[in-house]
């Protein structure tokens, strides 16, 4: 029972990180039908930016905020410079660009910062809360992660549901040509979508680094679990990425806890296959499946 509580709590914390990564993937997928394989590498880069700022005696919160800003800028620049030329071309072109960016960014980070893992601080204690006289696997930092990702999701929801910009972004995603005829500057909405996606990734990057150390490839496995979460959630709705992230986090935590951590990647694959067999479009999707 105690173990179950521990696995559940650490699953929730990990799931929130996967949800943030999934949110970034979803934002980009639904507006450009591109799977951003560089999402993790972009988050890695912004976390290195934060790490460098910390070395230059910036405070944690300043570095945290600037990592998010760096995410916004990196996302917007990626869309403008690399993605725009392949927009509207076949999907494989964008995939190749994204994978190219992934390799480039990891090599760039290695060249600048070296490939030795470095520690990254957390703003809160990494010692578990004590409940009923027993410490549990849930730290003040985990609580911060959960609240921060929930806040991010809430802000995205408000943005999309209740603001003019959000309405234009949704219209650009669902029907770009019609949106243009209505005066929506669709290109700007795509840039904004990429910027927000990279910011969500940057948040995940800062949350993962204290637990695993910072290295050029530290986000690779997180990206895979984020992908699983996004696909389980249906790749289209921010709510789906939250549910997909939590589900993936919990299941992987149970698999890792009861079967051993070497089974986690297999667990992700099994989860993916099962969901795709039962509901091929993911749990939260409006798309009708098509028989071919």
């Amino acid at each position, binding site marked *: 029972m105690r173990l179950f509580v521990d696995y559940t709590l650490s699953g929730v914390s990990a799931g929130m990180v996967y949800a943030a990564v999934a949110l970034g993937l979803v934002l980009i997928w639904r507006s450009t039908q591109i799977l951003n394989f560089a999402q993790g590498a972009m988050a890695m880069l912004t976390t290195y930016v934060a790490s460098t700022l910390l070395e230059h005696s910036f405070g944690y919160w300043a570095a945290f905020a600037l990592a998010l800003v760096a995410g916004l800028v990196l996302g917007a620049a990626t869309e403008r410079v690399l993605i725009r030329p392949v927009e509207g071309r076949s999907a494989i072109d964008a995939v190749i660009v994204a994978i190219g960016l992934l390799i480039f960014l990891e090599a760039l980070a290695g060249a600048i910062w070296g490939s030795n893992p470095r520690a990254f601080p957390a703003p809160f204690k990494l010692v578990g809360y004590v409940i009923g006289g027993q410490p549990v696997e849930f730290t003040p930092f985990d609580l911060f992660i959960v609240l921060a990702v929930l806040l991010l999701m809430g802000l995205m929801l408000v943005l999309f549901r209740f603001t003019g910009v959000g309405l234009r972004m*949704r219209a650009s995603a669902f029907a770009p040509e019609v949106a243009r*005829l209505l005066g*929506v500057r669709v290109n700007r909405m795509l840039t904004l979508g990429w910027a927000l996606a990279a910011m969500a990734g940057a948040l995940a990057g800062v949350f993962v680094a204290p637990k695993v150390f910072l290295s050029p490839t530290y986000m690779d496995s997180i990206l895979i679990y984020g992908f699983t979460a996004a696909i389980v959630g249906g790749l289209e709705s921010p709510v789906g990425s939250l549910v997909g992230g939590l589900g993936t986090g919990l299941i992987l935590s149970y698999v890792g806890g009861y079967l051993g951590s070497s089974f986690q990647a297999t667990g992700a694959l099994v989860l993916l296959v099962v969901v795709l067999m039962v509901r091929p479009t993911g749990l939260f999707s409006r798309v009708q499946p098509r028989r071919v």
Partner: protein
Amino acid sequence: MTGALVLEGLSASYGPVRALDEVSFVVAEGSITAVLGANGAGKTTLLRTITGLVRATRGSAVYGGVDLVGQAPEEVVRLGVAHVPEGRGVIQELTVDENLRLGGSFRRDRQGTRATIDEVYAMFPALAERRRRSTNTLSGGERQMLAIGRALVAKPSVLLLDEPSLGLAPRVTTRIMALLRELVADKRLAVLLVEQNARSALSIADQAVVLGLGRVVLAGAAAEVAADESLRHHYLGY
């Protein structure tokens, strides 16, 4: 005749295929010009070229002293030329109200936009009843009304309509055509109406332009074209 929209030598191609060939005519303020012709005659391409969705290879489309050729679609509507695309273009993932708000999302005056949206609701009470509902609950005719209403929220001077009667029952088509006539009278709109349904388009149009293989093969007063049996028979097949 003062022209709201003046087309001169407008041409466009899809690769080596000429889709529009030197199309010239004038759409006057407060009037309806019906663009007729068989499938593939270039009717839809004409509208798409005016709004910049298809690049013109030569010629001009001047509105209010500005050549629309070379402008992006999102800028053309801001200048006052609204385009209701074929198949209506209602965004199904959005509610009725969101569709209408989107139509005025580039406008700076929020109150004015809200007032225009309320005007549209007054014009189409069926939409007002379902403003918070998904557009999936609308009938074909209501969707067409939503698409036209949404274009009106942009406060255009020129309205380009692509096959508004497509897939609608004759009774509904008649209502939409009557409504267009009223709009033109009320708002002094210049309307370019592309239609496969020549009979109902001619019933409300002032001017008729018949396209064939991208060229203007016949242009004249709508009443004359409708009255001349041999013209109708030869060009419009009825």
